[in-house]
């Protein structure tokens, strides 16, 4: 495991994106909607899902894309995986903010899947990930669709089992 193969544009873009995403996260966290252990769970969820997908289809036998400059594990790859973490929280946050219910959930999941595909496209444009073995951006749509559906189920299951909000109404 090395720091990076070559510190160039993709690493710089990655750091800019990470800074931006985490600044947004801290601004949103100031609203203190969820209890800290739910916030932590959402962040770990985002991080784990990112790692699971990357190491399943982005490496090994399938190896559909290369993260950063090489197929081997770089420290900057961990930075890339960290980028997924806040999105676990954002999904929970907007699910609550937009008052998502059974009727709206299809549109909500669909919208997040589009955001995911858009982010994937942006990463390829910035050279953070490089598609290989005939993999196309569109193929990531079903993956995001499944992930976002599972995240919605997870949110509903947690909310059903315990009070996840800091204030009684979650405001």
């Amino acid at each position, binding site marked *: *495991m090395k720091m990076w193969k070559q510190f160039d544009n993709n690493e710089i873009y990655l750091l800019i994106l990470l800074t931006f995403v985490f600044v947004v996260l801290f601004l949103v966290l100031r609203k203190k909607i969820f*209890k*800290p*252990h*739910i916030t*932590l*769970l959402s962040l*770990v*969820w985002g*991080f*784990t899902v990112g*790692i*699971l997908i990357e*190491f*399943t289809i982005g*490496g*090994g*036998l399938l190896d559909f894309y290369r993260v950063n400059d090489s197929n*081997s*594990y770089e420290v900057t790859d961990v930075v890339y995986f960290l980028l997924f973490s806040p999105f676990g929280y954002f999904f929970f946050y907007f699910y609550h903010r937009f008052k998502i219910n059974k009727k709206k959930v299809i549109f909500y999941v669909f919208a997040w899947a589009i955001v995911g595909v858009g982010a994937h496209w942006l990463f390829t444009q910035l050279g953070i990930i490089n598609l290989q073995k005939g993999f196309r951006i569109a193929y990531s749509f079903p993956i995001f669709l499944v992930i976002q559906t599972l995240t919605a189920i*997870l949110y509903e*299951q*947690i909310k059903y*089992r*315990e009070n996840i909000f*800091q204030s009684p109404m979650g405001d």
Partner: protein
Amino acid sequence: MGFVFYFFVSWLVTVLFTVMKKSLSFVENIFVFLIILIVSVNWSWIIFEEFKFLELSRQPLDYTAFLMNRSIGIPLIIVITLNAAVRSANVKGKAYLYVGLSTVILLGLKMIGNFLNITKLNNWNTLYDVLYFISLHLIAYFSLQMYRKLIKEEVTLL
């Protein structure tokens, strides 16, 4: 054959976890599962793909079997053990017995992988696996302690 075996194991641990009497809450179980999943995925990547201490079959079904054990079998066995160990925390030595049994099962699953030619040892000692599986139990335990501390602090603050 490897695919059938590991699919069965993954199914079995999933059903066992679903029906078992749990000592951890829903969010605690999810949290510990995710932490172990992160470690399991990274560890397998580092020892197989980076350092190539072990060789992994490139047959699609064998590879899928390995992925199922890495992502479902190992994390769920650890979570099941943690639930059992926490429930029997008052009975002296029982928790250690569960951890020992779980380590033997995980080691057995690993050895069956070698036997079925899904994995091949290049520069590896089984003792490393024993240490790794024991470490996984410790990571699970301390993750739970940390998470419970966070929940307890919320109760004090609110």
